[in-house]
């Protein structure tokens, strides 16, 4: 339909990001020069161990934690599993009740389902049409068996910034100890995090969503938080996470965090400007669109998500790809389960509309020209697909 151009615009930074140049440079020496094993006493090993410590320090500082409170994992999936099952198992004598939301990432939902199959009771909070959880419902659900709350910070699909600080406050005021886990995979580097102010006990992040490499995630764990390891084996540096550390990736994670937090506010402002430009452009140029998630300050600066009615998301995605633009879709057709996104369902979006949802996720490296290009291509793609659609405007 459209002729492919040479411009490549990557707007799927919520899925994974390009490794930053500086990050790759920082990693390189750890493949062939400083390739030692971090538990080894000799100098090569010490170099590796020092590098891991430096990365811990950078990441700790970025969320107002202490160095020793950072454990490295292979990604946020593993960090979520370790945090949630780890805290659930370690606290099961005190209770078996866990609260989370209906809009968590699968890496949290699958863990909760597994805990349910093992006898834990999990309540899934509803969210409003913009994706916000209800603090009153949370308070009502907490009972004397409640041991753990797990809430995502930013919703990866629709960009909703959940009221983490308020949840932290509620938990702080309880007389019983309820641990608080936050999946911050989608917020880290985009929305400020302060584990002290927010009263967070465990927090999951991942390098590959902040221009770091795949293969490194981290779990912040407040000192003295009881956690059981969920995997076992040969312990290198972290008793809770057996296995040889991925030193180069950890080094890259540290550097990626440094880059993200050096000039953090500037980066955020930049993303917000692009986000608003893209949103305004879409709403001006294309009819029959539905925004998913909130507007303004309570939306992630990096997330834009619209349904384009009467067309199917995967077709939009592929046409954009043929034009050099990468995005994600909430359409069923691009998933294994062939069901529309559970997040869109939870906020009450009808399936026929959910199938046409396209998510654009920004990074500080995107440019205004890239948005211009998207705003040139996207309306044509939608128009062309609507032309071959059997569904007529206004039909739903």
């Amino acid at each position, binding site marked *: 339909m459209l002729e492919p151009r040479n411009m490549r615009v990557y707007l799927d930074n919520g899925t994974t990001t390009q490794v930053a140049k500086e990050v790759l440079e920082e990693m390189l020496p750890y493949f062939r020069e400083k390739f030692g094993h971090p538990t080894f006493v000799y100098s090569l090993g010490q170099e590796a161990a020092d590098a891991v410590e430096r990365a811990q320090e950078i990441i700790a500082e970025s969320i107002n934690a202490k160095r020793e409170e950072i454990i490295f994992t292979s990604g946020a999936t593993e960090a979520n599993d370790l945090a949630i099952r780890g805290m659930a198992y370690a606290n099961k004598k005190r209770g078996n009740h866990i609260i989370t939301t209906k809009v968590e990432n699968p890496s949290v939902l699958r863990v909760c389902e597994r805990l349910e199959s093992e006898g834990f009771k999990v309540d899934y909070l509803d969210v409003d049409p913009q994706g916000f959880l209800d603090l009153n419902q949370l308070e009502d659900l907490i009972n004397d068996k409640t041991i753990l709350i797990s809430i995502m910070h930013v919703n990866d699909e629709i960009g909703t910034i959940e009221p983490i600080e308020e949840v932290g406050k509620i938990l702080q005021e309880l007389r019983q100890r309820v641990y608080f886990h936050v999946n911050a995979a989608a917020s880290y580097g985009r929305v400020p995090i302060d584990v002290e102010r927010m009263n967070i006990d465990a927090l999951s992040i991942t390098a590959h969503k902040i221009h770091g490499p795949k293969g490194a995630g981290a779990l912040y764990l407040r000192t003295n938080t009881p956690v059981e390891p969920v995997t076992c084996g040969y312990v290198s540096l972290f008793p809770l996470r057996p296995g040889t550390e991925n030193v180069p990736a950890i080094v890259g994670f540290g550097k990626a965090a440094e880059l993200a937090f050096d000039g953090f506010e500037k980066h955020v402002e930049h993303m917000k400007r692009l986000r608003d430009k893209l949103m305004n452009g879409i709403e001006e140029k294309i009819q029959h669109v539905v925004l998913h998630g909130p507007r303004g300050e309570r939306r992630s600066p990096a997330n834009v998500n619209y349904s384009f009615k009467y*067309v*199917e998301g995967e077709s939009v995605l*592929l046409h954009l790809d043929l034009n050099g633009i990468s995005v994600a879709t909430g359409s069923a057709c691009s998933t294994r389960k*062939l069901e529309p996104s559970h997040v869109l369902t939870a906020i009450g979006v009808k399936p026929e509309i959910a199938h046409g949802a396209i998510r654009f996720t920004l990074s500080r490296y995107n440019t205004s020209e890239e948005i211009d290009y998207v705003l040139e291509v996207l309306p044509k793609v939608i128009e062309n697909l609507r032309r*071959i*659609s059997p569904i007529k405007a206004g039909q739903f």
Partner: protein
Amino acid sequence: MPVEYTEKSLLKYSQRIIELFKNPKNVGEMENPTVTVSEGDPQCGDMMQMSLKIEGNKILDAKFLSFGCAANIATGSAVTEMIKGKTLDEAEKLSIKEVSDSLGGLPALKMHCAVLAHKTLRKAIREYRQKIEELKT
């Protein structure tokens, strides 16, 4: 919950599918079709409309509209192309496998799209025959 390990097919399209997705044949509305039917449901994420022009026992022309993924659009294109010039009986015998083969194979997870185009075709032939029957009586 023991899991038997089986490879999950990737959502991977053949070059042919991508070609037809970019430039589908026989897409659009038809003027004065002999029969037009729809199959599928936007709620389930795919829907196809097909129009046939039939004379005697022969399909002279076929067109389709698609609300669906690339596989849906490509199979719509392939099916309409394959049946043009065929008799109704021949068209009815067209198998899903033939359609999929003509596309260089569909990813396992997308087989249901081939099925939809196939179902739409069968429905069109069935409706046409019913109409003929009704005219006869």
